[in-house]
């Protein structure tokens, strides 16, 4: 079975009578979760048809609709969501996908997870803590396993380093950890760039340690940066500048660690949409990290597709009508105008997904249920709007 608890999409999970084998804490909780919701309109239970009808009415009358999320839906449902967004003139905000655009455009080098396992000798966790977000990354690919060219595993063959605003769980198992002051993140990145250019960095950080770090990075045969997309990660352009500088003297690849199991797929689909002949990129749909495009506070309708918006932004600034399509109860579903429960990708909904490294993975069903998939719900909406 494939776990859709995060974008590693672990394909070795076995489901038995006594629970899941091989899944991590998040995977096990995700697969066995029973936190389902009922269809609701204005916080009162209704049947599915009434909820879908109500959502359609809101979408049709909206002037500034925005769709958010998409990272927790199978690829096929995402495609239907894009069609619906185009039909109703909605902007799509996916959050956390900016850095994927640089990879998809070929602006920065990347690699697959099996390549990390087989070849990586220097691994940087930059502004991320996979032990808490992608728990099996280190054991399956990035650190512990022996690989084709890394037969001695982490003890001798790999150097893992964290650069983060906090001494995280991942930092505690890495060989080196650089904890950065949140107000001096750019200073650290600039100092590292200087050190990589053989200059003594002008910085209040420990110069010797930064020079040592630069030396390790320059000697890498196959370096990999796992970069976070949250608030602890350096800005996207600082990461790209670092990648460029590293690749002047060694060989580094970038892999973003983003929330959701299928965010890379929506980034790919939106990119294809914008590269369509005749599309100037200003059409109905647009991907954005939340900083660009329409401000959510301006939207008069927000459709949350597998995304707990209110657990991600201060809710008091949001005024639009809220439609939630989600397998589980979320903070957002409690306050939404319309709630439409759906089957969960990889649990009671099959499809495909794109792993964080770009590999397409077929997602089978773990169990049958009566729930409609989000793709089927979006199709029904598409037919009536």
């Amino acid at each position: 079975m494939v776990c859709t608890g995060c974008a590693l999409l672990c394909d070795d999970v076995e489901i038995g009578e006594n629970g899941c084998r091989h899944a991590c804490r998040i995977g096990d909780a995700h697969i066995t979760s029973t936190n389902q919701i009922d269809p609701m309109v204005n916080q009162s239970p209704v049947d599915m048809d009434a909820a879908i009808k109500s959502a359609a009415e809101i979408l049709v009358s909206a002037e500034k609709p925005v769709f958010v999320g998409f990272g927790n839906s199978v690829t096929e449902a995402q495609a239907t969501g894009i069609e619906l967004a185009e039909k109703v003139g909605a902007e799509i905000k996916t959050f956390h996908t900016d850095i994927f655009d640089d990879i998809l455009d070929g602006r920065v080098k990347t690699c697959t997870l099996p390549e990390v396992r087989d070849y990586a000798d220097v691994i940087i966790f930059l502004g991320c803590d996979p032990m808490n977000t992608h728990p099996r990354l280190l054991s399956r690919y990035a650190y512990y396993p022996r690989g084709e060219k890394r037969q001695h595993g982490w003890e001798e063959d790999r150097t893992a380093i964290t650069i983060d605003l906090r001494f995280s769980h991942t930092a505690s198992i890495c060989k080196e950890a650089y904890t950065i002051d949140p107000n001096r993140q750019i200073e650290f990145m600039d100092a590292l760039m200087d050190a990589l250019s053989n200059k003594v960095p002008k910085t209040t950080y420990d110069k010797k340690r930064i020079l040592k770090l630069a030396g390790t990075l320059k000697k890498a045969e196959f370096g990999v940066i796992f970069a976070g997309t949250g608030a602890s990660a350096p800005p996207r352009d600082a990461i790209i500048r670092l990648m460029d500088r590293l690749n002047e003297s060694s060989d580094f690849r970038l892999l973003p660690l983003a929330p959701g199991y299928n965010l890379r797929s929506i980034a790919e689909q939106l990119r294809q949409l914008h590269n369509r002949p005749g599309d100037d990129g200003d059409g109905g749909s647009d991907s954005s990290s939340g900083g660009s495009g329409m401000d959510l506070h301006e939207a008069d309708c927000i459709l949350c597709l597998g995304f707990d918006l209110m657990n991600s932004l201060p809710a008091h600034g949001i005024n639009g009508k809220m439609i939630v399509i989600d397998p589980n109860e979320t903070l957002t579903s409690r306050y939404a105008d319309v709630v439409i429960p759906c089957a969960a990708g990889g649990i009671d909904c099959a499809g495909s997904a794109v792993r964080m490294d770009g590999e397409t993975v077929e997602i089978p069903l773990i169990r049958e249920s009566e729930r409609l998939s989000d793709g089927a719900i979006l199709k029904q909406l598409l037919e009536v709007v």
Partner: protein
Amino acid sequence: MKMEFDEFLAAPECGVVIVTYPDIFRTEAGLRHGKFSKEYQELSAVIVLDSGDMAKIEVTDGDLVEIKSEAGVVVVRVKESEKEHPGIGYMPEGAWAYILGASPVTPPASTLALSAKVGRSRQEIPAIEDVYRR
């Protein structure tokens, strides 16, 4: 109602920069018990403070503190850090930190880190429904 003398005194405050972090146990609690559960709330409404900062505001591990920023106010439980990081308060990603204005995505380089004041609280931790009333 009888008032104690110290209730008229303002609790000492300390300035901190808020940094958010992911917590696997909190994610697990949200999936297993739901986002309105006691388990999820207990793992969400937390700030990890430097022991020196805790001494300044006269709190010990497990006490309740009020955190105020320009965007909002929350009450959470304080946890003493195993590391030294004066002036930095670590909070789990999610509702309680975002109400203070913490960014869920990578902010632009020009954005200043989120500053807040933290001090002892006499209020209880509010239910998530109250933090997030629309």
